[in-house]
Structures are given as C-alpha cells and as structure tokens.
C-alpha cells in the first residue's frame, strides 16, 4: 500500500458519561473512496468531528501524509487539506456564495486590512467553475438548492490543497440526476489522488462507489472490508452485530370498507393526489425526497395550506385547517422529523404523551389528572416503552423509546386513520421490528394506516398496496404481490432523467463531464436592471425616500424655516447620541444578541465623564474616562452573556438595574452643573457643522466600513445568521460576539461624553428610555431582531427619521405628547412591512 493521505490511529473520545469512540483506527489511501457505515450512535459523527478538528480526541493520533498532527479546530483542518462536507450543508442564509466559499476555504481574503470582495468573488467563481457548475458568486445562500450547496462546499474544499475529503450522507436530498453529477465529481477528485471518506446509510451507494468499507459499531471498528470481496449481508451483520433476518411481520387480511379518500388534495397547484383507503389496510407511499409525500400528509392534517382538492371521510367531505380539526375527525400524523416536529425535548414523558388528548380528559375546563396519568401509563406499557418514570424529560430516552412515546400520543386519540411518516428513521434495529409488529397489529384492529417511507424493504414488507408518488402526483399503483423493487424505483424517478442511470463505478462518468465557461457564468447573474430595482426597493432607499418627502413637506409647511442651518444642525445634534449607540447596537443585534442596559450605561458614563470634566476640564481626559467606562460596562455584558452562557436579555436586564443603581449612588441625588467651557466646546463648538455631528458622521462611515469590509464585521453576520454552523466551521463566534458588546459599550460612552458637552450638565434621569430609542432605530432600519442581517446605514437613516419626526411635530405644532405614538407606529409599520415583503418573496419563489 501507498502512504495513506490521512491516518487516524487508535482514536478514543469520551463525552460526559459516554464513550463515543474507543480505539478506532482508519487509514485513507490517496485516490480511494473509503465508505464508513454504522447504525445511528455507532460513532460516525464523532469520528467526523475528530477528523475535521472540531473535536479533540482524548487518545490516539492523527497522521497527515505520515506526519503526526494536532488540529486546533476546523479552520486548521481545512488549511491542512482536510475538509468535511456535512449532511445538512451548514448554511448562512444571508451571506453570498462568494463569502461562504471564503469562510469554508482559507478565510476571507484581505487587502490593506479590509476584505477584498473582488478577489473573493473571482476566487469563488473560479473554484466553482472547475466543478462545472455555474453559480453566481453574489447569490444568497438561502436561494441555493441542496445540490448547489453541496457543490459550493466541495468547491470551497477543492480550492485548497485538498488531501482528504469527508462526505456525510451527501445524497440525502439530491435528485437522481444530481446524484450522478456528484459521482462524477468524486471520480474526478479520486483521479487527482484525493482520499475520500463516504459516510452513508444507503448500502447500494456504498457498493456502487467505494473501494473499501469500514463498519463502526458502538464506537469501535467492527469490521474493515474490501468492497469487491464482500456482500451487503456481511456488511449489515457487521453493523448490527448479528445475523439479520429480512422478515416483516405482515398478516394479509381482506380489507374493510373505505374510510378515507384524498380527492386531488395537494399543497401545490400542479399536484394531484387521489386515492382511497380502507379500514385495516396498510397503504405504502413511496417516492423520492421532495416528491410530495410528507407535504401531502401535512396538507391532509391541516398543517400546510391546501391549494386544491378535498378529503372525504365516511361521513363528511372536508379540508382540515389545523391538526386539532383532523384529530377530531380521527386523522392523525406521526411526523417525519422527530426532533423538530414531534418532541418537546425538555418536557416530561407524561406531558409528551398526553398533550394531544388533554381535552378529552376534562371535566368542564378542569383536567382529570389521575385519568390522564392512567391512560398514559396503559398506553406506554402496551408499546413496552422503557423509561425511569413519567416525569423524566423525554430527551433522556433512546430514539426508539421516544418514537414509541409519540406513537402512543396518537394512539391515545383512538384514530381511524393513522399516517406514519418515516416511523423507523433513526431508531435501532430492535425498536424497528417492534414498530413493524405494531403496524400490523393496528391494521388488524381495523385501523387504516398510511405508511410513508424511503426504505423500500420496509414499504414492500409492510404494505398491502403501494402508491409511488412523483411530482405531487400518483405515478403508479401496485397491489401486494404485483410489485418488484425495480418497477417501484423506476416509477419514482422522473421520466426524463430515467436514462441517466447510476453507474456501477464512478470512473465511467468522468469523461462526459462538460465544464462551463466563465461567460456562461456571467449570463446567469441577475441583470443590472433587477439589481437596481432591488437597490431602490431596499430598506435604506425606502427610509431615505420617506425622509426626503417628510423634509419637503416640512419645508413647505414652515415656509422654509425648516431648512434653516440652525434647525438642520439641531436635528442632527439631537440624533447624534442615538445614532452613535445604534451603530454599536446594530452589531450586537446582527450577532444575535441584544442590550437593554444601554441607557443605564449611558448614565454612568455621563456621570463619570461629568465629574472628570468638572474636576480637570479639557476634552481628552473626560472622553477617555467616558469611553473607558463604556468599554468596561460593555465587556461586563459580553462576558456574562457569552462566557457565562446567559441569555443577553437577562444579563442586560440585570446590568440595567445595576448600572442605574451605581449611577444614582454616584450622583447622590444631585445633578452635575456648570461643566467648564474647555470641555463643553466639544459639544457646542463646530466648524460648518457642530463637532458632535462630525463625530457622528465619521462613526457612521467607519461603522459601515467595519460591517462590510472587515473580517470581524463579516463574521458577525455569519455568526448571527447561524451560530451553530459558525461553530462547526470554526469561526471565532464567541470572541466576535463578545467584542460586539464591547464596541457598543465604547460607543455608548462616546455618546455620553458628547451629551455632557452639549448640555453642560448631567441630569438625574439621564439615559432613561435611551435603550428603547436605540433599539427602535435598529429595528426600523431593517435589522433582523433574530440576528444575521441588517445594515449600519439603515440604522442611521432610521434614527434620523425618528429624529425628524419629532422635529416635524414641533413645526406642525403637534404636542410632543404624541411623540411616542408615532415611534410605536413606526416600529409596527416597519416590522409589518417586513413581514409582507417576506411573504411576497416567498410567493414569488
């Protein structure tokens, strides 16, 4: 054998109380596809974590090209040529493809300390073009298809000196055409001598692609096999540790009368699913991911909105609007994704079981606790669910037992129609068999069952009838005994790509690959016209437009007084503190945090700077003290929320009170009056504009630059958009989030000093309600309160708009008492407008 590109030797990894890997050794040869298989929990993802550098092994060593190395993180791994493509592409919704590529490869290209967007774009399109998939670098990640995401990830890995590539279940959400393209890609990389590790559940893929197979079981290597010399059965028994019988407990019975029918029901206009279902029948729905099986089921029970069609039950024709309505008519659905759609992870087993049927056990409005408990226990026992007690959180149960709890939840409702969506996904072999036995038993009791599954053996083993779904329609119907595996599969694939068969070995494909030229690439980019219209419709332009109209109205209304120099600089002076702090708040909120202590911090800074100014005069010392106090306060917020892992609302609620108290203590019930002129000249003097306005304009300009063109700024957006993903690819998310609080603190300090200097005094109620003005500016400016998107320019313009509105009310002689109403309406208008825009975008796409 040649020198392996990557060797993991004797790797062990422990988690609190769990031994995830123990003494695992695996070597990856250059130009080899090495399959890694194993059941859930066998240790595959931990091994990927160790190989990528995300997890540090407790024992063992990693050798890259024969050299022993220690990886400090995923970024380090990528730099050394080890790339991991995760199952769900780790996506940052609001970043561009170019930026994402950069984060995934060598990091953002810098030039003179700022991000070099030009290089980044061309590097991204070059990298992607070598794979023959033209994807414009300016497209947003959220607009990419699953296949495109994968291409970008591989391209990013490819852009470096790639030696080992790990793929985790790469074909889960790909169409057959896309799968064959992926195979080409892998063949290509293989030819270049890259060592590829291919993790998959689908044994057919493993046998199509791989040269060798490593089987993991319970954190150990159960077997290492040469693909050409083994069989699927051998691999499966290595996975489960015993011989597996392909036996499905299916009893064939004559079906009863029709109890349920779908008449053209679909959530999309071009879909059309019609079929009838009889009592005691198990109807299998097979199809590719995205064929519309789960979508149909969710439409049937009212979770998705139906575009057309109705449901016929024995006694009524209807469409359900909520899951509760469906439940009342006896139609229930076990969702496909247990963790997202099924479990209440932190709640007790009892609560998880009874939640859907609580209303059946009420006397008037009151719950009959004992009755609920009894039915829950009986129900869980029937399925032989193992748990310590009803009170333990469901998250502590194994996958199989969790699934039994959720099944019990629906069985307690005594349904007539039970829709099971991937009921055995992610549970172990033993539990699988129990679920199969249960399905047969339920059908025997006269229940009508719809079984949605991507596992062909399961569908074939358990169903009385199979409907193959394609593009939201029934492509073919099979009766039990009339089907073959091939017939079902070919009915599932779209006709036009049917001939693009998956090759025996990937090599065969590498020649036919066509590559796209950069010209073609450019064609796919959005036209200039739509780019301009997009810019015109952006939040910044919208606010600027409103500002302009408002200013015009005011000018006419006030006979020009509005445009006077004093009035204009007054408006700017008034909004200066808010804008300064709002720039910092934009960073904090974009990074996924929030700070409601800003007003109290402003008060402390103003007070300390005021004392200093009174004592020593001058500009610089008070400035230093004010900003310094702000930095310390911000650092405290950052430290508690990031290092202390406390929710930022909570932390800043506490520090809000703390800072306010310290401020009151410092002031001792008095105001600070008569600050010396040597200090107030900062706030009252000026050149063309007052000095504070200059400061505000430069901070805004620098703020825009920092957000768009520095590494720190860009990482803020990545972290806020998807904190988990940022962690996985090794971005310094904690440091960046911490710094956002510090920067906000510093800016609040600056705002405080300027406010002192302008008024020449510090009042007892300084900064009350300041945080709300600041947050209002950020929100109206279009920043997403959940993080990930927003601009400094938008924030500044919004703050100006809020300031101008107050000014307008002075001119229109509207009492300032209406001020707050206007602010409230502006926030509501902004967010409701956002919601409408988002909905329109969704409809358009």
């Amino acid at each position, binding site marked *: 054998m040649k020198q392996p590109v990557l060797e993991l030797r004797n790797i062990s990894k422990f988690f609190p*109380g769990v031994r995830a890997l123990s003494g695992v050794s695996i070597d990856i040869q250059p130009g080899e596809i090495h399959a890694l298989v194993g059941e859930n929990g066998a240790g595959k993802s931990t091994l990927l974590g160790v190989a990528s550098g995300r997890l540090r092994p407790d024992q063992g060593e990693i050798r890259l090209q024969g050299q022993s190395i220690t990886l400090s993180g995923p970024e380090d791994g990528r730099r050394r040529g080890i790339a991991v493509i995760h199952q769900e592409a780790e996506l940052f919704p609001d970043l561009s493809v170019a930026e994402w590529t950069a984060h995934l490869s060598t990091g953002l290209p810098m030039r003179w300390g700022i991000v070099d967007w030009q290089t980044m774009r061309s590097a991204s399109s070059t990298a992607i073009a070598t794979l023959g998939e033209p994807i414009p670098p300016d497209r947003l990640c959220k607009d990419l298809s699953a296949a495109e995401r994968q291409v970008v990830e591989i391209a990013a890995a490819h852009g470096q000196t790639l030696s080992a590539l790990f793929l985790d279940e790469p074909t889960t959400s790909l169409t057959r055409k896309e799968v064959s393209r992926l195979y080409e890609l892998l063949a290509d990389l293989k030819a270049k001598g890259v060592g590829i590790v291919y993790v998959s559940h689908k044994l057919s893929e493993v046998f199509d692609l791989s040269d060798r197979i490593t089987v993991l079981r319970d954190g150990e290597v159960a077997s290492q096999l040469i693909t050409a010399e083994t069989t699927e059965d051998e691999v499966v028994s290595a996975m489960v540790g015993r011989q597996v019988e392909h036996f499905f407990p299916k009893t064939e019975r004559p079906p009863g009368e029709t109890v349920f029918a779908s008449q053209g029901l679909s959530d999309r206009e071009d879909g059309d699913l019609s079929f009838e279902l009889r009592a005691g029948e198990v109807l299998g729905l097979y199809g590719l991911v995205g064929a519309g099986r789960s979508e149909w089921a969710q439409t049937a029970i009212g979770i998705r909105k139906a575009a057309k069609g109705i449901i016929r039950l024995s006694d009524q024709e209807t469409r359900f609007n909520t899951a509760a309505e469906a439940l009342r008519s006896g139609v229930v659905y076990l969702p496909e994704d247990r963790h997202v759609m099924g479990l209440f992870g932190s709640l007790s087993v009892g609560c998880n079981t009874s939640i859907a049927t*609580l209303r059946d056990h009420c006397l008037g409005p009151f719950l009959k606790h004992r009755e609920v408990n009894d039915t829950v226990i009986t129900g869980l026992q029937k399925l032989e669910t193992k748990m310590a007690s009803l009170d333990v*959180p469901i998250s502590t149960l194994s996958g199989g037992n969790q699934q039994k709890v959720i099944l019990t939840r629906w069985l307690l409702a005594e349904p007539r129609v039970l829709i099971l969506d991937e009921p055995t996904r992610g549970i172990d072999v033993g539990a699988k068999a129990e679920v199969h036995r249960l399905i047969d038993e339920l059908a025997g009791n006269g229940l009508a069952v719809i079984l949605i599954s991507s596992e062909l053996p399961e569908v074939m083993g358990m169903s009385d009838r199979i409907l193959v779904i394609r593009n939201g329609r029934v492509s073919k119907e099979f009766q039990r005994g009339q089907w073959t595996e091939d017939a079902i599969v070919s009915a599932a694939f779209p006709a036009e790509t049917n001939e693009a068969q998956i090759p025996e070995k990937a090599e065969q494909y590498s020649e036919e690959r066509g590559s796209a030229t950069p010209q073609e690439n450019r064609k796919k980019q959005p036209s200039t016209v739509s780019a301009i219209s997009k810019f015109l419709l952006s939040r910044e332009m919208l606010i600027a437009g409103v500002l302009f109209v408002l200013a015009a109205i005011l000018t006419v209304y006030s006979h020009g007084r509005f445009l006077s120099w004093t009035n204009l600089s007054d408006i700017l002076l008034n909004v200066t503190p808010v804008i300064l702090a709002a720039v910092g708040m934009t960073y904090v909120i974009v990074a996924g945090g929030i700070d409601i202590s800003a007003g109290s911090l402003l008060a402390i800074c103003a007070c300390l700077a005021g004392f200093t100014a009174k004592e020593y005069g001058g500009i610089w010392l008070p400035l230093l003290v004010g900003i310094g106090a702000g930095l310390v306060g911000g650092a405290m917020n950052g430290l508690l929320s990031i290092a202390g892992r406390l929710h930022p609302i*909570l932390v800043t609620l506490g520090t*809000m009170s703390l800072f306010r*108290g310290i401020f009151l203590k410092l002031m001792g019930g008095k105001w600070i009056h008569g600050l010396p002129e040597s200090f107030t000249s900062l706030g009252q003097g000026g050149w063309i504009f007052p000095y504070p306005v200059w400061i505000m304009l430069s901070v805004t300009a620098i703020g825009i630059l920092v957000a768009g063109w520095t590494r720190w700024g860009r990482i803020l957006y990545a972290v806020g958009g998807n904190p988990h993903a940022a962690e996985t690819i090794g971005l310094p998310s904690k440091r960046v989030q911490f710094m956002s609080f510090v920067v906000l603190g510093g800016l609040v300090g600056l705002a405080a000093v300027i406010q002192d200097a302008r008024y020449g005094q510090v009042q007892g109620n300084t900064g009350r309600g300041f945080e709300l003005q600041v947050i209002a500016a950020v929100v109206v400016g279009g920043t997403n309160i959940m993080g990930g998107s927003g601009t400094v320019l938008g924030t500044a313009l919004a703050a100006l708009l809020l300031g101008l509105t107050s000014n307008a009310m002075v001119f229109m002689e509207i009492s300032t*008492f209406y001020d707050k109403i206007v602010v409230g309406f502006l926030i509501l208008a902004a967010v409701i407008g956002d919601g409408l825009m988002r909905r329109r975008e969704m409809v358009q796409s």
Partner: protein
Amino acid sequence: MSHIGGRIQHAIKANARELILLGVLILVCVYVGSRSPFFWNMNNLLDMTRHNIEIGMVALMMTLVITTGGIDLSVGSNVAMTSIVTGFSYLAGVPMPLAICAGLLAATLGGLFNGIAIVAGRIPPLIVTLATLALFRGIAMAIGKAERVSTFPDWFAVIGQGYIGPVPVQLILFIFLAIIVAVVARLTPVGAFTDAVGANPIAARFAAVPTPLLLVGLYTATGLMAGIAGVVVTSRYATAKPDVALGFELEAIAAVVLGGTRITGGWGSLSGTILGLLILAVLRYGLQLALVPTVWGTILTGIILIATAALNEWLAVLHEHLQKRSMTTT
C-alpha cells in the same frame, strides 16, 4: 423509612430552584432584620408589599407569557394607559365604576392588540411589545397631556389604601388573582399547552395544540392584569398620571426570571415568581427600613438577578450531566 426519605429527596430535587430562592429570601430577611428592629413588625411587613403587589399581578401573567417563549414589554405603558383612561373618563363625568371598566377595557384591548399582532402578523413578541410600549405610553400622554386627575370618590381609595383587618386590600386582591392564575395553569390544559409552545412551537402545531388561541388569550389576559394593576396604582396614589409605572415591565420580568422561569421558554414556575417578588420586595423596603439608601436596592436587584440566573443555568447543566451519567451506567 427509606421510602419516606426517597420521597423527600424526590421533592427536594423537583423543587430545587424554589428551595434555593426560599434560602435567599430567608437570608435577606435575616440580614435586614438584623439591621432594623422594625423589620419583623407585622404591619410593616404587610405594608412593604404594597408597591410590589402591582408588579406581582403583572408578573403572574408574565410568567406564563415568558414560558411560551414570549415577552411583554408593554405592561408598564398599559398600566399608565389604564390609569389615564380611568381618571379622564371620571373627569369627563362618567360614573366611577364605569370609568374603571373603561380603563380595564382599554388595557384588555391593548393586550388583545399585542396578541393579534404576534399571532397574525408573525412578528417576534419582543418587537411588537416594544412598539406598543411606546404606543400605549403615547396614548396615555396624548390624553393626559401634562395634567393629572386627583379627585376621586372616597370609596375608590379603598382599593389601593384600605385594609381588611391588618391586611391591605390589594394583597387580598393579589392572592385572589394568583389563585385564579394558578388554577388555570395547573388544573386546566392551559399549563401543558403553555409549556409545549415554549418547548417546541413547531411540534406544538403538529400535536394539535391551539397555539394561536393560547397566545392571543395569554397576551389579552396580561393586558387585563396590567389594567387591574393600573386601577390599584391609581387608587394608591389617588392620582391618574401618564408617567406612572415607568420601568414597571422590567421589574415584573426581573421577578419572573428571579423565580427561575426560563427566558427562552419551555419552563416556568408561578411559585418561583412569587418568591422572586418577595425577595425583591424585602430588598427594596427592608433596606429602606434599615436606613440603607434605596440605590443599594437597585444595585442588589441587578446583582441578584444575574447571580440567580447563573445559578439556575449552572444547576440545569449539572442536572443534565447527572442524568446522562445515570443513563449510561444503567
């Protein structure tokens, strides 16, 4: 014997947070009591709760709202709006009972507006109630201008200043309201639904939980509760003014969080909230009684809030850790 021991152990485990809070409360009481001979005077103890009772009423509902993963920042403004609507209706010649109803109606509608905007507009509660925080205060100021109403019928003062025996009237009102909220949360499906929506809103939709109805109901009830607090405040000060209850929402949230309710939703405790309220009340008034300047109360509130939250978090992590260990050893 061991059976009883086991049950006690179980009870301690299940109520660890409440027990910690009780410990903190006792410590604070002992400290304040040692500083002032007047602290352990029953009348003082009852009187000191006055200010916190209004916050407490709102905090009861806030506990449920935060448990769903939401928040309501508009309650303080809603209190002011109620006060002003009540006061100015009376000034305009509406009989006092009807004026109170008008105030309560305004507050309830305010809560309803929050709920509908959150559910129908799909806007994060933080933003909706931030907007209505400004909006309701603005309405109060627009009606009230710089004026205030200070002439009310004599009987109205009973609500906020009267006693039944040695017990302030509003304390009895609070206990009554607390019982109602606790009954709804513990003895009807509402409590389970609240936990479920906070723990996993998507799963709640799949599990046939009536989320929209629940949320609209909770925010509306929070509005009504703020209204009742508004009436009590107005009676206590014998004044309706637009700048009443500033920062009220934060004190209510502080009590809830201090009580151990998770700010991200999914877990809440009404008894914890009441203990949290008591700690804050003792701090504020006890320190005042011990002639410690009030500002120390504000500072301590902040420190206690962060410290308890950190302790809660630490306990939760420890708990998870232990559970994982016991899982793998069995």
